[in-house]
């Protein structure tokens, strides 16, 4: 396989070896943790800020507007200016709020998305932790953020926050099922939960092509369910502006609000990268079959571009949903999940199991 020409694992291994030569193993590990943590922090800030910018631009173009265009060329520094503004804002203490929980809640939300980002393979060899239960880990960790949202709503001592948090709880608990089951279809196809092996299994074609109609249904269900899980429109009942002012983060201000805001966009990025990894091949270039000239040409585009391109595509799809559809009511939301998505998903899993058993997919 020629897709190894941009393999970064030799680079990371040489850095590791150099560190271990220079200092004791304990210190070397510690340095690596700190460096990777810093890289993720910077990535977090940059990706979060520019997703906000992208969202505002996409939304504007869909509404025949220009979007941010004043700060910097094409308004590229707008979100940075917004961040500076948020950093300088006062953190307003809430009367009768549960101080400890109120302060902890934004950190729980942001830590949940940090934990999830660790398991995402960005390129070959650019993968912080390669768990053998990667998908399971990501599903488990990304549902921790609902605890932060519930705590934020509960501790704010505000009716809007509480209603928003409760809605968010109901929503995430029901949509978690669909997310898990739709990822499970690909796990059945690939026969593994390890994200790196799932990507390797797509070396001769992405699962959305190889698994034809079943994988496509699973992809659509995953898109819908994960949009709901990240509390984005049209499923943003937890922060429905018109009814609940801002839902669970009504009482938050300044940098604490920014944490919720950043976490929402990072969750979108994580969900999009999971979709890209599982359904669209992650960093794997576009391949059809094995060893053709077309595959060879595709190999010359570095994996990191494939990964970012696919993730951007999925992010764009999610923004497209958000700025097209009106917000669902809570009963419509639960109907969609329990009456439509879940039964379809269960039948789909059955079909996939049968397909895999009979080998009726492109190998």
């Amino acid at each position, binding site marked *: 396989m020629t897709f190894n020409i941009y393999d970064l694992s030799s680079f990371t291994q040489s850095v590791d070896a150099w560190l271990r030569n220079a200092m004791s193993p304990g210190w070397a590990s510690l340095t690596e943790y700190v460096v990777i943590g810093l890289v993720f922090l910077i990535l977090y800030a940059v990706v979060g800020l520019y997703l906000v910018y992208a969202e505002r631009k996409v939304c504007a173009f869909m509404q*025949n507007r220009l979007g941010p265009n004043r700060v910097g060329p094409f308004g590229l520094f707008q979100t940075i200016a917004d961040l500076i503004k948020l950093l300088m804002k006062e953190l307003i203490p809430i009367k009768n709020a549960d101080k400890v929980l109120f302060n902890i809640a934004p950190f729980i939300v942001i830590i949940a998305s940090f934990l999830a980002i660790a398991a995402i393979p960005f390129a070959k060899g650019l993968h912080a932790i390669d768990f053998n239960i990667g998908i399971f880990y990501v599903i488990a960790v990304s549902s921790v953020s609902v605890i932060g949202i519930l705590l934020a709503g509960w501790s704010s001592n505000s009716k809007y926050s509480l209603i928003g948090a409760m809605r968010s709880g109901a929503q995430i608990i029901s949509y978690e099922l669909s997310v898990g089951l739709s990822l499970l279809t690909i796990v059945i196809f690939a026969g593994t939960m390890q994200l790196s092996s799932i990507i390797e299994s797509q070396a001769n074609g992405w699962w959305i092509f190889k698994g034809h109609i079943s994988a496509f249904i699973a992809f659509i269900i995953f898109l819908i369910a994960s949009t709901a899980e990240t509390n984005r429109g049209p499923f943003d009942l937890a922060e429905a502006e018109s009814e609940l002012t801002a839902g669970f983060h009504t009482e938050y201000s300044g940098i604490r609000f920014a944490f919720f805001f950043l976490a929402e966009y990072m969750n979108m990025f994580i969900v999009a990268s999971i979709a890209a990894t599982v359904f669209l091949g992650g960093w794997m270039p576009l391949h059809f079959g094995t060893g053709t000239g077309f595959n060879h040409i595709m190999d010359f585009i570095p994996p990191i571009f494939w990964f970012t391109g696919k993730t951007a595509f999925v992010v764009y799809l999610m923004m497209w949903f958000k700025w*097209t559809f009106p917000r669902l009511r809570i009963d419509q939301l639960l109907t969609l999940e329990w009456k*439509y998505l879940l039964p379809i998903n269960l039948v789909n899993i059955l079909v996939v199991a049968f397909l895999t058993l009979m080998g009726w997919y492109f190998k």
Partner: protein
Amino acid sequence: MKEVLNYFEDIFFGIRSLWAGMRITGKYFVSPRQIVTQKYPENRKELKMTERFKGEVIMPHDENNHHRCTGCGICQINCPNGSIEIITKKELNAEGKEVRAIDKHIYHLSMCTFCGLCVKTCPSDALAFGREFEHAVFDKSKLTKILNQPGSSLLKDVK
């Protein structure tokens, strides 16, 4: 059986209508020429306001400095917030008869709500809406304007 059929009908109808919505926004997304936002301070030179735009009340004068205002005062009566004051004077016409004429048509832009009643009710079409809209000034008194130009007179055939 009918319920099952309805279930799938619901799904397909839902997908079709959702796709119809997404097609519209998707089309807007890929057609940047349809963007209606104007970059205002940059395009001041070529900025053209539409015909029906209500910038301020003006009194059009022709090239010989003639206007059409007879000083009847209907605009002053009709103005709901008293932003028009009419000061008239007596003038001798061609036959040596004493007639009423406009001395000062005072217009307070600061009080105007641009309702358009003055323009609509003027019997001799002496008033109109101008396209000018950059009215910010540092001195409030600059917002009080005299609409008839100095030395101007009534157009001949206006009744």
